[in-house]
């Protein structure tokens, strides 16, 4: 009989050789770590860019030693020009949204732990998985290369509105090759993300172990699954959009460029296009994208909080249905980024309604997290702190969304620092806290060593207080009418606001510096950390049934059988106050299985 390779394990022999094991690996765990590594590089680069931006905003004429070597033209003598500020800002946003927030909570942790948490040996399509990572890496290289081409990186922001981004170098420095490279990079990234999403969905639907029903999947897995459904449809729209933008730039088409434009003293040879078309296509992707950024973190911190609280959440189903509603609604609200864009004002009202509706599932999630803390036995580790910090940040960032969801109020607050504060709190901080929490929680499993709890807690306090110091004041600036995307503040009313900016810059530099504590902890623990037991947190899900780190085929050739719901805590288990999902023991407690609604 011919031995047909089984569906997921197309590599039923262990990989041999350094290249197959660590570089071009089809093992989802290696790929997850590769995504994590790429996100680390991207986040520190993005953070560095933000330092340059914050420095320039409060000390616009001071030279930054060495910057002239990165760009002679962008920073002559080390002083950032207005256009270079915009380039730094564009790259900061692009790196952070795509290469950090889509990569780390979703691609990195999802790739590593989704197959494990459902009891599979690998992803459904391991070779596609490997391609996803390397295509993402290619996109990263193409993006970064924009720093080194004539004209430098684009100046149109991560949102890249046409016609500024479409007419070419006439509209400004960086709008030549740099902008084209940006668009190409994003198109490549879309392909990679679509392949990744395909893998996640097929794996979740088809490769669950015996007894692992959908409702028995941990909340982190649910979050990855829902996120990949969003990503599948969202990136499918961004890809055509970027292709049309590239054609406008290099092939003379006019999808987004209308007639009679006098840009840079040249009458542009385009006609009939619609700038609003770009905005609609971009934001149709862009709004679901921000939920792609936050949903995995919601799943991760739910998973961690439950373990820390030693009890399941008040309702497993309510979390899942809330996440599903958020995902569904996320496709109906994109116009709230365009209230004053010149689109039909009646459409603005139509978009405002579902935007306001999203408050409801978001509040359900928050109240369930809060309500589950009541009566729990909270044992606090670094991971727990970041999970709790997520809840605090999600509340802070979320309530300001309520302002921006109303077009009347958006008339005043649009394009001010209020918006910047809102999205940094939910994406830049809350989502990132999910990544930190996941790192502290899963590092022992991934490496077989414990991270330093002392350094972890120190990292948390500095970051938690620090990010509040940075981003809370953004809202006050916005209320005063401080406009965003300005490289220098020359408006009459900005004088009294500059001390606030100075405070923010100092907070940003200090908080950023604290992240090196995390980096040190990560690297040092990888080699010198205390050896980790198999289940350091006494947790119930399948990743804790395997050795730390797991073998190449996850379950060692055996196939787990799942008997229980994912969060059997607060019960009398044979090993403690919990029962693992694959343990055949019966639950001996007042609560029986059916109460996990």
């Amino acid at each position, binding site marked *: 009989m011919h031995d047909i390779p089984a569906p997921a394990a197309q590599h039923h022999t262990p990989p041999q050789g350094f290249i197959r094991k660590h570089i071009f690996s089809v093992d989802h765990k290696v790929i997850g770590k590769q995504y994590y590594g790429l996100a680390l590089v991207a986040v520190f680069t993005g953070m560095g860019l933000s330092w340059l931006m914050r420095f320039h905003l409060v000390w616009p004429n001071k030279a930054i030693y060495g910057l002239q070597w990165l760009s002679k033209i962008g920073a002559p003598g080390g002083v950032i020009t207005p256009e270079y500020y915009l380039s730094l800002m564009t790259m900061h946003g692009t790196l952070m949204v795509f290469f950090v927030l889509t990569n780390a909570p979703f691609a990195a942790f999802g790739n590593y732990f989704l197959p494990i948490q459902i009891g599979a040996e690998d992803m459904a399509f391991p070779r596609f998985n490997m391609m996803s990572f390397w295509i993402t890496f290619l996109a990263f290289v193409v993006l970064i290369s924009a720093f080194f081409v004539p004209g430098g990186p684009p100046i149109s922001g991560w949102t890249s509105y046409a016609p500024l981004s479409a007419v070419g170098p006439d509209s400004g420095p960086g709008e030549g090759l740099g902008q084209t490279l940006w668009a190409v990079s994003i198109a490549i990234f879309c392909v990679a993300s679509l392949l990744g*999403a395909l893998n996640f969905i097929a794996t979740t639907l088809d490769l669950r172990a015996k007894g692992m029903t959908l409702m028995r999947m941990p909340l982190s897995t649910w979050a990855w699954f829902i996120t990949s459904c969003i990503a599948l449809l969202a990136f499918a729209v961004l890809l055509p959009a970027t292709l049309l933008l590239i054609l406008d730039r290099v092939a003379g088409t006019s999808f987004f460029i209308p007639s009679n434009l006098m840009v840079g003293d040249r009458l542009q040879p385009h006609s009939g296009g619609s700038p609003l078309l770009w905005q609609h296509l971009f934001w149709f992707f862009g709004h679901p994208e921000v939920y792609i950024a936050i949903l995995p973190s919601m799943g991760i911190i739910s998973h961690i909080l439950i373990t820390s609280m030693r009890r399941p959440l008040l309702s497993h189903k309510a979390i899942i249905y809330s996440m599903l509603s958020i995902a569904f609604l996320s496709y109906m609200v994109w116009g709230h980024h365009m209230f004053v864009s010149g689109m039909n004002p009646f459409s603005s009202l139509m978009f405002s309604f579902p935007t306001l509706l999203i408050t409801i599932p978001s509040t359900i999630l928050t109240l369930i997290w809060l309500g589950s803390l009541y009566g729990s036995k909270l044992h606090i580790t670094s991971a727990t702190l970041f999970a709790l910090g997520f809840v605090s940040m999600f509340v802070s960032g979320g309530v300001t969304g309520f302002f921006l969801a109303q077009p009347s109020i958006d008339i005043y607050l649009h394009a001010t620092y209020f918006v910047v504060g809102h999205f940094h709190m939910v994406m830049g901080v809350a989502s990132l806290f999910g990544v930190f929490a996941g790192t502290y929680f899963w590092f022992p499993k991934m490496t077989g060593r414990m991270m330093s709890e002392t350094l972890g807690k120190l990292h948390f306090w500095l970051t938690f207080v620090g990010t509040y110091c940075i981003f809370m004041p953004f809202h006050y600036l916005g209320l005063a009418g401080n406009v965003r995307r300005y490289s220098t503040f020359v408006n009459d009313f900005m004088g009294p606001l500059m001390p606030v900016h100075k405070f923010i810059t100092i907070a940003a530099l200090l908080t950023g510096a604290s992240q090196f504590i995390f980096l040190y902890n990560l690297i040092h623990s990888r080699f010198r950390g205390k050896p980790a037991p198999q289940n350091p947190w006494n947790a119930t899900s399948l990743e804790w049934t395997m050795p730390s780190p797991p073998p190449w085929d996850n379950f060692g050739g055996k196939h787990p059988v799942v008997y229980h719901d994912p969060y059997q805590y607060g019960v009398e288990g044979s090993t403690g106050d919990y029962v693992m999902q694959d343990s055949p023991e019966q639950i001996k407690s007042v609560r029986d299985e059916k109460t996990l609604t």
Partner: protein
Amino acid sequence: MATTVHEPPKSDRLPGRNGSGHNLIPAEGDLRAIQDRSPEPARTGIWIGLATITMSFAAFTSALIVRQGSAADWQHITLPRVLYFNTLVLLASSVTLEVSRRRISTYMRGMASDAVRPVSWLYATVFLGMVFVAGQYAAWVRLKSEGLYLPTSPTSSFFYVLTAAHALHVLGGLGGLANVIQKLSRSVATLRRSTLDATSYYWHFMGILWLYLLLLLWLKF
């Protein structure tokens, strides 16, 4: 038999059988009653992939509709006649693919009347697919001869974009068919039914997508 193609043998050695509602494990752990009802990932994967492709072409369609309404420069172009010939070719290729798919399935179940592997209909499909792509190229040549290039008018822009995007996906489909042929033609065949089916669904979808695009071109152009 060393030369027969089999479905993967059902045994506990294989990983990842899902637990649907029917696969709940009782606490006593009696596994004998559990039946495996999970689909092969390729079957799920192809529907997911087709959903994505549909969404992308939906985006192109909305772009077309918006662009048509945003200015008064939408020019009517006569669709090159070769497009209709290409349509027939693509539909024919779906027919040949279906014939080959059924023959291969019969063969794989060990029920074919002879031991020859039914690849010839697959080759016919690939040939027709290549004729289609060549025919699309001929349509572009025709348009160019009329002075209609990519940037000439929004109509011509969308014509090239839509047909090129579709043709690229068809080329991908040809790659998939080549993969199937290769797996079937090995001395020990390694083709799985799910791979064959997924590749076929993709190819048929290319036909359906083309019919949609042709309709769109015919209505809007």
